[in-house]
C-alpha cells in the first residue's frame, strides 16, 4: 500500500550514512510510505541547559515543528545529545500526538552510558525502535500494552530491548487507517 503521506528524517549532528540508510529502510518498511533523509543544521547551544547539562527536548520539538515540517509530512529530528523535558530527568524522544513532528536521540540508547561495552548493532536496533515509536505518536498512536509492540512505553533501554520494531495488529490498523 502506497500513501500520499511522506516521512522526513532530519539528522542533526553526525550520523554514519549506513546507519541512516538502515533507519530509513526500517521506517519505510514499517509505514509503507515515502521516506526521505535530510541533513539539518541547528545551533544546539541555544537549547542547552548549563545547570542540567542537557538539551531541552520540548523547545527542540517546537522548533522542528515550526521550521522543518509541512502538512503532508511527518518529520522526525534525529539527535545525538542528552534530551530532557522540564519535569523529567531525561527522555529518549518525544512527539506531538497526531501532530507533524517528533524528535529522538540515540544518546541514552548506547550501552556506553551505562558502563557496559559498546554494541553498535544493539544501539542501531534501539534507535530504529525509538524512531518508529515517536513517528507512531505523530500518526495518533498512544502507548500500547502489548509487550512486543513498538508502541509499548519504555523508560529504560531494557524496556526498548524487550519490544519488537513493528506494530501489533491493532496499532498497525490505526496507522494504515491514517495512511489510507
Amino acid at each position, binding site marked *: 500500500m502506497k500513501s500520499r503521506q511522506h516521512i522526513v528524517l532530519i539528522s542533526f549532528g553526525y550520523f554514519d550514512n549506513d546507519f541512516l540508510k538502515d533507519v530509513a529502510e526500517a521506517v519505510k518498511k514499517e509505514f509503507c510510505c515515502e521516506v526521505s533523509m535530510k541533513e539539518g543544521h541547528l545551533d544546539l547551544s541555544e537549547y542547552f541547559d548549563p545547570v542540567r547539562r542537557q538539551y531541552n527536548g*520540548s523547545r527542540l520539538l517546537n522548533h522542528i515543528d515550526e521550521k522543518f515540517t509541512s502538512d503532508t509530512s511527518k518529520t522526525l529530528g534525529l539527535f545525538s545529545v542528552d534530551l530532557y*523535558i522540564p*519535569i*523529567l*530527568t531525561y527522555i529518549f524522544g*518525544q512527539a506531538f*500526538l497526531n501532530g507533524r513532528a517528533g524528535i529522538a536521540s540515540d544518546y541514552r540508547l548506547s550501552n556506553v552510558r551505562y558502563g557496559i561495552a559498546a554494541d553498535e548493532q544493539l544501539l542501531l536496533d534501539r534507535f530504529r525502535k525509538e524512531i518508529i515509536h515517536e513517528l507512531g*505518536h505523530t500518526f495518533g498512536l*498512544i502507548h500500547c500494552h502489548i509487550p512486543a509492540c513498538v508502541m509499548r*512505553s519504555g523508560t529504560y533501554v531494557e524496556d526498548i530491548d524487550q519490544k519488537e520494531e513493528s506494530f501489533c495488529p491493532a496499532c498497525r490498523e490505526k496507522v494504515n487507517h491514517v495512511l489510507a
Partner: protein
Amino acid sequence: MAKKISILIVDDEISVRDSLYNWFIEDGYHVACAENAKTALSIIENEAFDIVLADIKMPGMDGLEMLRRIKLLKSDSIIIVMTAFATVETAVQALKDGAFDYITKPFDPDDLSHLIRNASKQIALSEENENLKQKVVALENVEDLIGNSDTMKRVLKEIESVAQSNSSVVITGESGTGKELVARAIHSNSTRRFFPLVSVHCGALSESLLESELFGHEKGAFTGAMYNRKGRFEMADNGTIFLDEIATISTKMQIDLLRVLESKSFVRVGGNKEISSDFRVICATNRDLKSMVENGTFREDLFYRLNVVNINVPPLRERAEDIPMLVEYFIRKYCLSMNRPPVTIDQSALNRLEEFSFPGNVRELENMIERAIVVGNGRKITLKDLPLEKSMISSSIESLDDLEKTHIRNILNKYAWNISRASRALKVDRVTLYNKISKYGLKPSE
C-alpha cells in the same frame, strides 16, 4: 474495557504543564491542566478527575491548601504533590493532609510511570472493593428466599426468567413478604451482578431529600451540602437500582423519575452537567399501583414504564406449608449468629404457627423466632415463647358482627378498596359486599 483514567495537572510553569500533558496523552490518559489552584478547584467542581498532580509552590493558594480543599470536595481523590524544593516537613505535611504520594522535580520517567500505575491500581481496587461489598450484601440476602410451596416456586421461576432480561420490574406484595429479597435475587442472577445493587427506601425520605439521594448534589446546592455527592442513579451505573415503596413518591418526583428512566441521564441537584448512567430499575410496593393510576395519584406513563414485568410475592398465610421450612431456617440462622447450640421447636408450637395469619408476614415470623431463641435461652421453643396471641384477633372483638366488620375492612384495605377484587377474596358478590359496607358504615379512610 478498562476505564480511561483522568489526570489534572496543576502547575504555574507552562513548560511543566506542557511536558506532563504530552507525556500523559501519549499514555492514553484523559488530561487537563490548570495554571493555579483557584482554576484547578473550579475545574474539579465541574468535572471529577481520578488523579490530581499538583505543584506545592504556586502563587496565590499553594498546593497544600489546594489539597485540603480538594479533599473537602471529594475525599477519595488521589492527589500527588510535586515540588522542586523538597523538604521532609512539606512531604510529611502533604501526606498527613491526605496526599497519595510525593515526588521531587525533575522526576525519573520510570518513577512517574510507576506512580501513575500505582495510583491507577488504587483507583481500580477502591472501585472493585465497593462493588464487591455491594455484591456480598446482595448475596447474603438471596439465600433468605425460602419456600417449597407452589406459589413460592412460581415466584422463583419468575425471578429466574426475568433476571436474564434488562426489563424494569415491579414487585408487589404485603409488607414483610420479602420484596427486597426478590429484588436482590433478580440482581444476583442477572448479568449486572458484578456491579452494585443500590437500594433506596423512597418512603423514608422527604421529596427534597429523595431528590438529592437519587440524583446526587453539588457542594453548596443547599444548606448542609458541604461536599459533592454522587446520587444513587450514578452509583448504580452498570448495576441495578431498587426503589422500595415507589407508590409513596410525590407527583414531581414521578415526573423526574420518568425523565431519568427515558433518557438514562440526569443532572445533580445544584449542578449543570448531564450525567449518564446505565442501570436497571426494580421497584417494590405494597399498594395497588393500577388503582392509584385509576384514581390519578400515580402517573400512568410512569406506571407502564416501570411495570414491564410484575412479580407478586404471596403473603405468608397463602403459603402456610412453607412455615416449617422457614422456622427451621431462622432457628439455624439465629442460633449461628448468637453463637448458641441449635434448638428445636415443639410440634404444638409449630402447628399454631401454621394456623397463624401473620399480618406482618415472613418478617413477623423471623422476629418471633429470633425472640424465642433469645428468651428461650437454649431450651426447646414452646408455645409460651411465641407471642402469637397478641397479634391474632383483638380482644375487644366479642360479637360475630364485630368480627365480620373487622375482616371486611381488612380485606377492603388490602385490595385498596377495589370492590371486585375484595368481593372475589371474600367469596361474596359485589352487591352483598356493598350492602355490608353500608351496614357497617365502612369508609376508605378507615
